[in-house]
């Protein structure tokens, strides 16, 4: 299948200036010495992995995610990228993305990133309303988003994503509309719109009564569809549940997850897919810092059965707007998808949650609203 052609590398940077109220990701503020030690360990992991993965051919996407990769000195990012080039075949035209907080973008950093080879930025703006930003515990302001964006353009970044959150506490369609207008005024190449999800253990979940009320389900869906319509009108095509791009600007790295292309995840808690095996690294920082063998940090190693892989084909692929191709399934597995998923497909088509067109199966608008309810039926 296509996973042979395009490969990716994900680098996790688990540091941030301060934890946001809604965040349950693997990230926290840390002293400089720890950050330094972390990069030493990361370089070691890159080297050791390359010795194990001698066949890992041309890499077309690299993604620095976090946390806040933009927080650490740009030299650290450069060091990682040169280590990657030394140890892997990184394509000349590879898409190299770095996530950053808009408040951390200055001229020096931007040009250093650029010089190191970063050619795509992902800015975690989340909102253009300072009151909302404060509420979320973000460290930046709306003005800083605009400034940061302008500086990035000046530094030569012509491929920029902006993240926006919706269904924020106290938010309604009108305030969302203002955010969308402010965002599209900047005309980034790519937009991600995420619904705020209340995760257990987060500050928000534990202090909910102190916040304005979260929008209800109906309001949230209305906001979601409002965003979709708004962005499409402005020339952003939705290619995945939460992602929108101008033509030709979809994030290749992101798409590769849904198309089950291979990727190596390096760093704390990072995940890989390689030879039909999913590996997740340890989430324990001290364990990561002192590892000697790769097996010390590979905590979760799951070999996918044929059934698992077939299920993934559907439940990951259906997140794409265009859905999945039945022919691709046949090519990948040498099996008839209808013989395996016939009843599930028929049921959901009857319910109006799945559609079919030209040999592709996709979530309908209604199906998209309740996608988990549909996708779980593809599990073995």
């Amino acid at each position, binding site marked *: 299948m296509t996973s042979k052609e395009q490969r990716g590398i994900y680098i996790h940077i688990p540091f941030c200036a301060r934890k946001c109220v809604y965040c349950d990701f693997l990230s926290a503020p840390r002293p400089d010495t720890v950050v330094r030690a972390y990069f030493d360990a990361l370089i070691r992991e890159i080297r050791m992995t390359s010795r194990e993965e001698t066949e890992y051919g041309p890499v077309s996407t690299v993604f620095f995610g976090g946390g806040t990769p933009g927080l650490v000195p740009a030299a650290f990012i450069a060091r990682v990228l040169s280590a990657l080039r030394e140890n892997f075949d990184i394509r000349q035209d590879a898409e190299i993305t770095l996530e950053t907080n808009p408040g951390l973008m200055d001229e020096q950093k931007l040009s250093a990133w650029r010089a190191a080879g970063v050619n795509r930025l992902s800015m975690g703006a989340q909102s253009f309303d300072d009151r909302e930003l404060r509420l979320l515990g973000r460290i930046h302001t709306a003005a800083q988003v605009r400034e940061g964006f302008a500086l990035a353009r000046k530094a030569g970044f012509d491929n920029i994503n902006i993240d926006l959150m919706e269904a924020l506490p106290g938010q309604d369609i009108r305030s969302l509309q203002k955010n969308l207008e402010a965002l599209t005024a900047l005309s980034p190449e790519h937009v991600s719109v995420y619904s705020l999800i209340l995760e257990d253990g987060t500050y928000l979940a534990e202090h909910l009564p102190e916040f304005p009320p979260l929008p209800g389900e109906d309001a949230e869906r209305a906001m979601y569809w409002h965003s979709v319509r708004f962005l499409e009108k402005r020339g952003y095509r939705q290619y995945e549940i939460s992602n929108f791009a101008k033509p030709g600007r979809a994030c290749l790295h992101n798409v590769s997850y849904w198309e089950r292309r291979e990727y190596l995840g390096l760093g704390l808690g990072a995940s890989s897919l390689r030879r039909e095996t999913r590996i997740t690294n340890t989430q324990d920082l001290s364990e990561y810092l002192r590892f000697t063998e790769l097996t010390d940090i590979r905590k979760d190693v799951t070999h996918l059965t044929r059934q698992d892989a077939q299920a*993934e084909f559907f439940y990951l692929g259906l997140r794409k707007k265009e859905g999945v191709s039945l022919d691709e399934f046949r090519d990948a597995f040498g099996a008839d998808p209808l013989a395996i998923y016939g009843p599930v497909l028929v049921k959901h088509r009857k319910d109006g949650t799945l559609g079919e067109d030209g040999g592709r199966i996709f979530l309908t608008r209604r199906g998209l609203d*309740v996608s*988990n*309810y549909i996708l779980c039926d593809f599990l073995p």
Partner: protein
Amino acid sequence: MSDLSEDIRQDHIRNFCIIAHIDHGKSTLADRIIEKTGLLTKREMQDQVLDNMDLERERGITIKAQTVRIIYNAKDGDEYILNLIDTPGHVDFNYEVSRALAACDGAVLIVDASQGIEAQTLGNYYLAMEHDLEVVPVINKIDLPSAEPERVKQEIEDVIGLDCTDVPLISAKNGINIDQVLEQIVHRIPAPSGDRNKPLQCLIFDSLYDSYKGVIVFVRVFEGTVKKGTRIRFMATEAEEEVVEVGYFGPGQFIPCEELRAGMVGYITASIKNVRDTRVGDTVTDAQRPCDKPLPGYRKVTPMVYCGLYPADGAKYPDLRDALEKLQLNDASLQYEPETSAALGFGFRCGFLGLLHLDVIQERLEREYGLDLVTTAPGVIYKVIKTDGSVMMLTNPSNMPDPSEITEMQEPIVSAEIMVTKDYVGQIMKLCQERRGVYNGMEYIEANRALLKYDLPLNEIIYDFFDALKSRSRGYASFDYEFKDYEPSKLVKLDILVNKEQVDALSFIVWAGSAEERGRKMCQKLKEEIPRQLFEIPIQAAIGSRIIARETVKALRKDVLAKCYGGDISRKKKLLEKQKEGKKRMRQIGNVEIPQKAFMSVLKLDDE
């Protein structure tokens, strides 16, 4: 074979039981008696050796009667054989209690030194009197700060009329004055009568299935002698077998002996495969030299409460059948027959003595046999008089004939006795009226306590009556009942429609007067239990074609995980797996997925 049976003098045997209101200390006293007689060291004693099923110990009640033979060296210097016959302690097992009592010559009646006489104290005492037992009263828990032995003595003399001059004041828990109890058993309870040379006449008071010995029959020999090789006949079931072994009950074990003679208590094995051939209350006689007539009091035990049991996983149907078969080997009162439900697939309609019995069986199936069960709402057996004159015993609401074919419906009525302190009489009378009770009078047992008598429809008390009784009397009321009669009643079948489709497993029969309220509550309950799905789901209650209540489960609006972080697919997969598991625990009815526990929800309708 150790055999002392030749040495045993009939006049040195005492056959007795211990009777008490629940929690007055029956099992604890049994432990102490066994301990005192020296057959077991303290270390060997499991707590409450008589209740040997896990479940019984957890619930603190005795379900299967156990029996033990002990040797007591009395103060007169003689050695006595004491056969302690244990009795089940719950109203569901009244008949079994009566047979155990019939095997005895006397009874030790325990009364709690603080609580005094309770409903079951009286009930048990009257039962003992019916069997002409010599009753030895004992006042227990005298070590408690709230103990009032003098008041309780007076109460026993006034209410029951037993002489309490030298009543033992004991603490079974702390082993105080247990020897006084043993002395009174020896001196006040008569030795068994009977003639070892007469034709054999034994009463079956219990039986047990053992995978090596087959059915082990517990008997009291009234006349004659039984030994290995005797060809015996079970008079009610007419089964005949040759005796393989006779013996008596050591603590926790069966000890074979040469023969059992008139007056003795012991067991018989005879390669009997089916416990149903050995019904409790039946008389065993010698097939070659039978006795004239069976012992009185035998009756075939009939279940009072029925429900459907279905395996949660349809593929486990054979496992459920095997498990029920095995349980029935030990429990002749459990009945089952296969049935099918459109909603639940293949399962069994099972009959139980009462709701506790149902609970115990259900828990044993789940715990001992690892089965995940779906249980439908329990109901009683209704009598349907059809227009063609035939009579139908209705155990499954789905089988109720069309109303046009019914002349009359009848429901089982029980006579209940409720003992309650004066302050709560009003509350309890109100409760009984709500449950369609017919007042049969009230007696004041003493100045502060009344015995209320009501006739109540069984279907009004099988669910939560006991709980309601306790909550409305702050735990002070106690309750006993027995089946009385079938009486005509206006009953209707309430059907539940989920998304316009009738769900057979949710139908139940209800008194017409409360049908609307029950229907409304049922719909509300189901609305809580059924998770939202893709479309709106109407839930309706109907009598025939008339809809009497409706609720709606709103359509699922949003179930989407937007963020997928750093290629961490396993996190997303776990979420989907959890969701899939949830779906597996549902039953597909038409388009709708109904959680298994919803089928039991009718039980919880009266929560207030």
